[in-house]
Structures are given as C-alpha cells and as structure tokens.
C-alpha cells in the first residue's frame, strides 16, 4: 500500500541578484517516486543533487528563497504541498519523523535527553507524563541505549556521536511514525557504529512496519540496507528500482560511473565523490542534465528525456536506457 507518493516535484530557489535580475536555481526537476509501508528506499547522489532538498520539500521545511513550484506530494492520500503549516506541524514528528545529520547540535543543549523525548510525545499525543516517560525509556531500550533510566538524565553534550544518533532515532520513534526519513544518518560516525545503527534501523523498520527513506552519498549503505534505490543527479532521479537489479545491471550512464567508482564490493564508508563539475542549477541545459559530463551524449540528449522502464520496476531517465552498450563506450569523464 503506497504511503508516500511524490509526483513531478519541482523546487526552485528564486532570488534577485545585485543587478535586480531574478535568478532561478532549479534544484529539483520533476522528482517522482513512491514508497510503501515496510519498504526502505535509499536516495543516493553527490552533494547538491537535491537529496536533502527532497526531504525538506516533503515535510515542508523549505527555507526561502527555496519553494515548491510544481508537482504534488501525497501522504496517505493527503496533499502535502498545499497543506497549511499548522496542519503539517501535526504530521511532522508524529506520522512523518525525521532523523537529521548532526545529532549533537540538533538536540536542545539546555534540556535533558529524557525530557526532550517526553516533550515530543506530550506535544503530539498528550496524556499523563508518566506514560510519556515510560515510552521514552522503552524507545531508548529499543534503539539499544544501555541503562536508559540514567541516560535519560544526561545532557546532549555528554553523549558520543553514536549515542546521540540513537537518541535521535528514539525521538523519531516516540510517536510511532508511519514514515521515517533519515538524512545522512551515519555520516561522521565510526564505521562499526554505522553498521550498528543501520542494523538497528532495519530491525525497527521490520518491527514497526514503517516506510523509510534513507538519504546518503554512500553506496555501501544502500547496498546493505535498502530494498529500493533512487539515484539523483541535478535535481532528477536518473535511475530507480530494486537495489539488487540496479547494482547488477545499471541502466544509466551516471549510475554506471557511480558503481564503477566503488569497486570494493560496496564496502561502506568508501564513498568516493565523483569528479566532475556539478551542474549549474541556474542554467540547466534543455534535455538531459548529464549532457556535459556524459561520454555517451549525442544531439538527441538535448531533447526532453523519457523515463524508460528497462526491467520490472527498474527505471532509467535516459534516451539510451537499456541500449547503452550499443553506443561507443567512452572513458569516464574526469
């Protein structure tokens, strides 16, 4: 059952420069995907591809000058793009929960950890404080925090990175969310800790039947923990599908380069940043966003690009999807 449906999402940064000219950075260009309960989707891409922006667009936390200019986002049938902020605020933190990148700076430094969990529960669910407190301890146990009763009295700055990330997970789970969005949940953590957190995450997803979106630039994370993958570049999803299929047979030149750049059988933490200029979002070319960096590019690529289904549920945004090997194979462009 589809929980989240993003259709043709366009998000732009619209501002005026010093010469009073309007400049538009087209950061998201027709992003579409859907997510069902109990499924884990991994969104990969280099910095600036639009991954975090997609998450922000979904929960309505875009900061000016960014705003959604087209498309729709439906959550359980409800349209999120036109929902007033007050209503969205009720969904955030309850039905849709977010785990962010910097756990130690994101937690309120002036409130004890346990109190923050209780506060989050009280705000959305109300009820007696003891019940919230009990649930807070339960969630801390669920995320593997040892000795939760005394940990609940710690201040955020007393926690290690891994522990703080677990706390964020506990925060996310407090109100039994249906959708969990994790934005770079393991960046900056030790590799062993990363694996623990992700194992935990997968376990929790299975237990609570949540739909989960993991945003990362690390292919290894996606390879080990996700069911589906969406590869982003220049604000578009260039390839999407079941993880195994996409890695076994990448059908888009960009995905191919990504996969080729991670030869160690998708070891986690070995995320290589692809060389090449990021696309200029203020002046995107007509047609395919990858034109200037793609070895296979032809004149056809200057026309609007179709999203071709190369295999079951496996899509590629390329004129030559599925026919790449017929083109003269080029070197990966530096």
């Amino acid at each position, binding site marked *: 059952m589809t929980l989240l449906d993003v259709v043709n999402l366009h998000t732009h940064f619209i501002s005026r420069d010093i010469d009073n000219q309007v400049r538009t950075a087209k950061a998201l260009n027709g992003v579409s995907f859907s997510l069902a309960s109990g499924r884990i989707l991994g969104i990969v891409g280099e910095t600036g591809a639009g991954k975090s922006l997609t998450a922000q667009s979904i929960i309505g936390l875009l900061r000016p000058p960014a705003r959604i200019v087209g498309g729709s986002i439906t959550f359980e049938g409800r349209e999120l793009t036109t929902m007033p902020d007050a209503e969205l605020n009720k969904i955030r933190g309850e039905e849709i929960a977010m785990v962010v990148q910097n756990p130690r700076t994101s937690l309120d430094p002036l409130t004890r950890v346990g109190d923050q969990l209780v*506060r989050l529960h009280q705000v959305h669910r109300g009820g007696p404080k003891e019940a919230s407190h009990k649930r807070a301890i339960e969630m801390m146990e669920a995320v593997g925090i040892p000795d939760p009763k005394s940990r609940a009295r710690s201040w955020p700055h007393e926690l290690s990175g891994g522990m703080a990330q677990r706390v964020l997970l506990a925060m996310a789970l407090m109100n039994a969310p249906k959708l969990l969005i994790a934005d770079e949940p393991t960046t900056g953590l030790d590799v062993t800790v990363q694996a623990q957190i992700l194992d935990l995450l997968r376990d929790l997803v299975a237990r609570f039947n949540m739909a989960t979106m993991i945003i990362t630039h690390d292919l290894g994370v996606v390879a080990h923990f996700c069911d589906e993958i969406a590869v982003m570049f220049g604000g578009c999803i260039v390839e999407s599908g079941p993880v195994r299929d996409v890695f076994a047979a990448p059908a888009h030149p960009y995905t191919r380069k990504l996969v080729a750049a991670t030869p160690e059988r998708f070891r986690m933490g070995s995320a290589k940043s692809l060389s090449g200029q990021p696309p200029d979002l203020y002046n995107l070319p007509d047609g395919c966003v990858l034109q200037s960096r793609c070895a296979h590019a032809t004149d056809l690529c200057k026309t609007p690009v179709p999203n071709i289904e190369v295999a079951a549920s496996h899509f590629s945004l390329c004129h030559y999807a599925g026919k790449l090997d017929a083109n003269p194979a080029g070197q990966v462009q530096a």
Partner: protein
Amino acid sequence: MTLQRFLLRRALMVIPLMIGVVFITFMLVRVGGLDPVGRLAGPTATQAEFDSIRENLGLDRPLWEQFGIYLGNVVRGDLGESWLSNRPVLTDIKERAIISLELLALGVGIGTLIGVPVGLRAAFRPNGRFDQLTRILSLLGFSIPTYWLGLVMIFVFFYLLGWAPPAIGRMSLLVSPPDTITGSYLIDGLLTANWQAAWSAATQLVLPVICLAIVSAAPILKQTRAIAIEVLASDTVRYAHACGLPEHIVRRVVLRNSAVPVLTFVGTEVTGLVGTMSLIEYVFAWGGLGQYGLNAIISGDFTAVQGYVLALALFSVLVFIAIDIVVHLIEPRSELS
C-alpha cells in the same frame, strides 16, 4: 569542577588583570606630561618649592619605582588626595559610588527590560514591519548624543511642560535629604518613612533614568535581535521544527538558548554605559561618581583621575566576573558540575 575551585581559578586570573589595569591607569595620567606639581604649587612658587613638592609626590623617582609605590598604596587602600576637594580620593569615591550605582541600575535595568523583549520580537519576524521599525529606532538610539538628549528632555519636560523638577541634582533644594543609611536618597527616604524626601528623590530620578534607559536599550535591542536570529537559524531550532514542535515551544527553546549570550553581552555593555552615565550625571548635576570623575579629568586633578579610572575598571571587572559566575551556574555545558 567544584564551585570553590572555579572561583579560585577566576580570582587567580583576575589578579594579573587588575595589575595590568592599575598599570594602564598609572600610565594614562602620565602620558601627556600632565604636570601635577604646577597645580599644587601655585603661580608664585619658587624653584625650591617646586622641587620639594615634586620630591614629596615622589615624582623624582624613576617610573618603575613610582609604579611600585603606587601599586603598594592601592593595595593598602591609599589612593592619594584630591587637590580639588583636599580629601582622600577613596573617601570621595566611596561616598559617590552608591549614587551612581542607583542611577546605573535603574537606567540599565529599564533599558534591558525594553531592549530584550523588543529584540526578541523583531527576531521572530525578521524583515517584517516591526523589525524594520525597531532597527531604525535602535540605530537612532546609537546616534543620539546622550548629553543632548538630556538637555532636550530638560527643555521639554521642565521648561515647556513643567512636569519635571529642575535638573540640579538628586534632591530639590527645598527638601532636606533623609538620614544616611545606604547613601541613596530614594532608598533612605523610603526606609526612614521620609515620604517627602523619597518623592523628591524619585522625581529627580525620572529624567536621567529615562535618558540612560533609551541610550542603553539601543545596543541591547540590536544584539538581542542578532543573537535570536542566529539561534533561530541553528540546527537545534531546525530540528525542533522537524519534530513538529508548536510555535510556543519553539519560542521557549529560542529564549532559553539566547539567554546566556544576551546576558554576557549586557555584562560587557555595562562598561560603556558607565561612560554614558557619567555624561548624564554631568548634565543633570547629579553629584555622583561620574560627574566627579569628569570634573577631575577636565581640571587635571591627577590623583582623583587615577582613583576614578581605577574604580571604574574595578567595577567592570566585578561585573564581568559576576556574569561569568551566573553563566556557569545556569549552563549545563560549563565545567562547573
């Protein structure tokens, strides 16, 4: 770290600072070759009398020796004698300190009570109409000369409207001051149930306090706004929004996270505001430490200037330390357990 160790560490840091401050004060009055001997000797003194006075004051010794002597005197509480008042400088200062403190506390207190809430409100709706207005007003507050403001207020409220009493000090000439307990006419009047004195003191206080409040509100407002805006853009607040926390709770988070930086700022502002207060005292003939000091500087009363500047510096240091301690007590992130 326990409280005692913390205080001890702070005290240890203060001592070199104070020695440095005494040194700067010492050098300050000797910078331009201000010659105290000429003043004391008078126009008819002979060379021999000049020399003997110079020897008396110790000015014939090398500079570093003079400093040593001065430092020793300061530690013992001997700040010399003012040639204007012919009394020990320390006595002069002790009498007047409470007077200025009263004005400072009221003025800066009210200024903070205005500046902080307005700055916070402006930060919650940046670039809105309220914000634009308060930015202009606060920049205006930075630009108005305090003494001129005092003069204009005297003109409007005393001369034109007759609401305020004449600006000739802390008490009307027709009322006799209350018995001295604290030194503050207002407090002493209230404590001794001398309602006439208390009322007179209060009405005299109104204009100078408003003056000081306006001028101190400006920087506090501006800085509070800047701090609050930074907090609003922080990871903490972004995450609070992502958790769906309602507006009033986010507001509380912002307030609490802004408290320490704002408090620290007000502490540092007090130093500058002491200078401003001195000007207000001058205009309103207040008779406090500020006016004493300004007069001393203008008339070249060497020892009085030294004592005055030292007293101001000491006050600033005490304020810094007090704020430091308070911050460490309320911040969970401090080294204090």
